[in-house]
């Protein structure tokens, strides 16, 4: 059990996908202006990450069995694109209330590097199936946490008046740097907590 908790929390805090691993920067900078959109996007990414791992992990075992490991990248990206499309249709058809809060974000996730990144990462780390699913959940929750924190930071930044050339993207990136700095404080915490 401790090993799952360790994977989960290290994915959320120490190896935070956005602020430490730099995956999913585009949605992080693009959709973090409003709290509601940030939460919706974060939740959608979490859902897709877990489902994508649930599908790609078994596929990797097949590829290994057939000596086709070099097809990993092509296979994963196509499977993820199909999965997201199907998920969107299913949610729209069967769960309209969920579609209003989550579904509209799904088409944005297809070519998101965080989703492809987490599937390849769990394979590289050699996780077992349950471990990989927990890692996916942790990566998604870490993305959600970063989005929510940053949407709060950003609301303040929008009201500030930086020098002319720093308006817009530069000041946003610099506030992201300060947010990332706060996450550096977590490295080492997990090792102490779980005695790994």
């Amino acid at each position: 059990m401790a090993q799952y908790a360790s994977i989960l929390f290290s994915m959320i805090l120490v190896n935070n996908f956005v602020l430490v691993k730099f995956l999913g920067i585009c949605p992080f900078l693009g959709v973090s202006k409003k709290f509601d959109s940030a939460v919706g996007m974060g939740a959608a990414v979490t859902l897709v990450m877990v489902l994508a791992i649930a599908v790609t992990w078994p596929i990797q075992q097949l590829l290994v069995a057939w000596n086709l490991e070099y097809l990993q990248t092509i296979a994963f990206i196509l499977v993820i694109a199909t999965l997201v499309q199907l998920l969107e249709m299913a949610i729209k058809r069967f769960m309209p209330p969920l579609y209003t809060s989550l579904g509209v974000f799904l088409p944005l996730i297809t070519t998101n590097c965080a989703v492809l990144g987490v599937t390849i990462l769990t394979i590289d780390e050699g996780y077992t199936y349950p471990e990989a699913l927990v890692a996916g959940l942790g990566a998604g929750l870490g993305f959600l946490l970063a989005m929510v924190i940053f949407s709060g930071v950003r609301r303040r930044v929008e009201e500030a008046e930086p020098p002319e050339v720093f308006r817009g993207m530069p000041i946003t990136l610099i506030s992201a740097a300060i947010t990332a700095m706060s996450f550096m404080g977590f490295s080492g915490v997990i090792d102490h907590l779980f005695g790994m």
Partner: protein
Amino acid sequence: MAEKTTVASEPTLAQTFSKGLLEENPSLRQMLGLCPTLAVTTAVTNGLGMGMATTFVLVCSGIVVSLLRKLIPSSVRIPAFITIIASFVTLVMMLVKAYLPALDEALGIYLPLIVVNCIVLGRAEMFASKHGPIEAAADGLGMGLGFTISLTLMSAVREILGAGTFLGVRVLPSFIEPMIIMVMPAGGFAVLGVLIAASVWIEEHPRHKTRYVRKKVAPSASLCAACPINCGIGDPTDEQCAKDEFVEMLEAAVEAARRDHEEAGK
């Protein structure tokens, strides 16, 4: 004056090539492909390697997409482009693994992630699918080199300040303590922010104003199909860019869907 010349004729091959270097530079101007720009630029060799790998994929996928542009039905073009791009990324991965194992180790997961780099899909969708193979190759080479230049610049700043070395050779005198923060994630965000601000400053500077007239990228809704933000404006350099309007659109869509749902409930 500048406007007249840009509208007047088809751009020459040299213009197609050179626009990616500065005025439409992918990372500093269009803000595309920020993930690798931030992630791999801790050392100059990594930035350079990543830039070259991306350039190779850009040129090759550009040529193939352009050759197949009349055969691919438009309804399945995005999956088709992704498959073409993924094939070349796989090729690059194999080459790097075989001949540059140290670089493969350093780039790690970011090498396969070239597939989802919005620059590559963006150029396939916006340029290669509408032009001949030679123009597509020139465009891919220009964009790729522009990306390589900004990655190299960024990694040079981070390596010199963060480790005191350039290409592994010590350049700062030993009494200057390296700033480790520069090679940490936080330093990546800060250096990119300052570099973008610097590029705006250079462009807005009165001395340069006559030379670099701020040109707008032709609005094209198709770029958005490729961009993960899918904003629908199609012009990443637009001042009231993409992202603001995108969020508004998103909120309007959520609101409309919510209203529909409530009405259905009644």
